[in-house]
């Protein structure tokens, strides 16, 4: 299985993502933001970091990078595109997934483990996972998901919410919302479910010596689903 990780100026989780994809069997290529064409890929990942220093708005300048036209075309033709953290912000800015990501509610960067609940497994990312609650890691300053009432209705009607912040029992109330996200939303899909944007970093949870191993379950399952 072939994957591509895009490196924007200021990306800093690109290597971590590369390590994770390789570990679970992807043949991964690093792709420079200024390239015109994506290599042939089964999965494209926009990694975390601070593309263009988060200047102007997080993700906004990266969404106008040369490579993004190719990424958008790939997504529109049904290709799998996953944006993690800053990658999620880039997806939002490029219009591939709806909504915006605001500054965290308490105006502070948050780096910690959180639990997330998977709502809908009828998609290539979560299909066949045998549990619903995962422990993932977040590290962001602008992860406060927001959208209009109309958008929210559409998102919910189309089952586009990918994951919600929750506690270890799957309870999704405000107490377990780390950043003020609307309805505890931690990640969403596009309508077709081939594009996934999420704040948590599964690539930081791929080894029991690290923050945990739920990321391993996610990647193992992902490659099996793509095969």
């Amino acid at each position, binding site marked *: 299985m072939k994957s591509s990780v895009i490196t924007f100026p200021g990306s800093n989780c690109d290597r971590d993502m590369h390590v994770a994809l390789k570990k679970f069997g992807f043949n991964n290529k690093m792709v420079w933001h200024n390239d015109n064409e994506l290599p042939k890929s089964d999965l494209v990942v926009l990694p975390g970091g601070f593309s263009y*220093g*988060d200047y102007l708005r997080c993700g906004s300048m990266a969404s106008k990078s040369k490579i993004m036209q190719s990424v958008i075309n790939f997504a529109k033709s049904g290709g799998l595109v996953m944006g993690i953290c800053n990658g999620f912000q880039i997806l939002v800015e490029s219009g591939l997934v709806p909504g915006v990501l605001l500054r965290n509610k308490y105006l502070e*960067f*948050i*780096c910690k483990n959180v639990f997330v609940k998977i709502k809908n497994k009828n998609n290539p990312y979560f299909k066949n996972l045998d549990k619903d609650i995962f422990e993932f890691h977040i590290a962001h300053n602008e992860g406060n998901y927001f959208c209009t009432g109309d958008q929210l209705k559409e998102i919910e009607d189309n089952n586009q919410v990918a994951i919600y912040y929750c506690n270890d029992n799957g309870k999704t109330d405000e107490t377990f919302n780390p950043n003020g996200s609307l309805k505890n939303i931690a990640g969403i899909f596009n309508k077709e479910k081939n594009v996934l944007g999420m704040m948590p970093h599964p690539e930081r949870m791929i080894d029991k010596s690290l923050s945990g191993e739920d990321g391993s379950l996610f990647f193992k399952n992902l490659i099996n689903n793509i095969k």
Partner: protein
Amino acid sequence: MEVNEKVAIDHGLKKDEYKKICTLLKRIPNLTELGIFSAMWNEHCSYKSSRLHLKKLPTTGKKVIQGPGENAGVIDIEDGDAIVFKIESHNHPSFIEPYQGAATGVGGIMRDVFTMGARPIANLNSIHFGSPQNKRTKNLLRGVVHGIGGYGNCMGVPTIAGQTSFDSSYNGNILVNAMTLGLVKKNKIFYSKAAGLNKPVIYVGSKTGRDGIHGASMASASFDEKIEEKKPTVQVGDPFTEKLLLEACLELMAGDSIIAIQDMGAAGLTSSSIEMASKGNLGIELNLNKVPCRETKMSPYEIMLSESQERMLIVLENGKEELAKKIFDKWNLDFAVIGKTTKTKNIELFFDNEQVAKIPVNTLVENSPMYDRKWKKSKLPKKIKFEKEVFSNLKIKDILQKVLSNQNICSKEWIWQQYDHTVMGDTIQKPGGDSGVVRVHGTEKAVAATVDSSAVYCWAHPLTGGKQVVAESWRNLISVGATPIAITNCLNFGSPEKEDNMGEFVECVKGIGEASKYLEFPVVSGNVSFYNQTKEVGIKPTPSIGGVGLIKNYKKMITMDFKEINNLVLIIGKTEGHIDQSLFARTILDEKNGPPPEINLFNEKNNGQSLLSLIERDYIKSAHDISLGGLITAVSKMCIKGNKGIKIKRFKSLISEIEYLFSEDQGRYIIEIDPKNLKEVTKILNKNSVHHEELGIIIEKEMIINEKTKVTIDELKSYNTNWLTNFMSS
């Protein structure tokens, strides 16, 4: 402007120093030259008050590849790998403008490390604030934490450990010390020594602006009520540019184009060009019209003294300009050939086709002033006679609550949750442990790092305090299973022109030297920050020690959380009951006098090495060193982290219960072992003549002391975790 003695004094030079400049040049310097002298001869760059004493520190060892004198120290971690590391202060700027001051401190130290060819793999920091009651404390703390996070997070380098303290002596002068570790191949280390004639001198990175002019001079002066006016001397950081600069430099370093490289830190283009020339025993010629400037009409004086961030100076091999330029273009960074190396041994500056400065390099470096300042020796304070009745009226549980929630002991999670501590995917021990630990990417090895200071002990008796900080650093590394290798020091003191402050400096350095020599834990880099005072009030002497150690197999790393019910808990090291200068004496009894606990270097080394050998044999389930707050504080933290309790035996000791639990005798650790290994462990400790005793047994969620005092783990947690969050949200 005409240069005279008054202008020189306004530049922070002393009358004698100005005279010396005129003698060395055999003429009166022009303003640009005077600016250069003042930048090179200030305390921050010249170490004029400290050099004499720093020379006495042990700086060599089997594992030392590079000691002090370069951008950072370098140690060998085997298999062709090396760790580059250093700590540096950014105290003055952080007090004036906490966000930018702290951010650029972090940026500066990371540059020092990647200048040597190393990719930064971990950041640490030691930050000290005034009393919580002081009205500026909260904003300074918030600003500093946001600044450290803002820069380090954006760079994608994990912040893995740190230390935060509050003490009224920092009310008018906070401390912000930043440390970085980088990983490099031993045969790909870059140095700042220029070599060869007519080699192109290259400027890369950000453009030069008017920010930070005379920043290093500001850092070499005391504060008064007009500090707000000094805001323009604080640099403004841009971590995004630094991230690009890091990647571009490492890309260029992969080849063989670079002869020498030096970051533009304190005193900017001045010190970087002069240091490269001085080390190479060469001259350097710069055309200042070629320097990329952010603002119009910048004068040679401003260009030379700007401390704009994220800039590097490189001496390249001839003919490599095009190749190098291509890399910096790719990363959208400025690149300019601004000069060349010469045989004149002068620094010569040209602007608008005119020579605007010509100074022999040696006058700026070798001939810079060095002072043997007067200093006062401090006496060991007399031991306090504590009345035993006072102790008997105190309830253990009440004291424990006060101690665990004390601002200098409580959990600092509010701070480190704002630092990305997991990026790079190799952090295997997060902040909150004895040391932070990161794996050496793609190997079985891991590097442990800790930063420590004990201003109270140093203030009570500088010689003992200096030794104690080194010993504590050593213990913190051993507690996670790392073999200590070397240290970096950041020496924060008051004015060297005052005999008391200078005495504190001299004796702390002596203590650091003695301990590091005995423990074979040499000093490989560091920095001195004097004049940490506002008006006449100096800070408590605060040397921060950054220690680095190696874990050969990261799977053998130890953490402090209690692991399993029914395991045995032992104390290594003897509990004598030294209460003077303990947190207990200072906060519960309000007794601020007395000597700090004595450091027995033999025991430190023996106890530490014995524990390492137990770890090597897989006998240790958890370990934690005993420091501030004494034995019971250490045990409480192990209970909190492991969510388990302990039944502490009735102890056989001549000292009182309070002395036993809260004294701060040194050289001690708490360890957890499987009961089936007790015999073996005891045998090894006895063989090494290590004092040890059984403390108790791990149980479910309660701490029981002497069958009388009972505290649940939830209570311990609430004592320990709430103070900082409540303080910051109040």
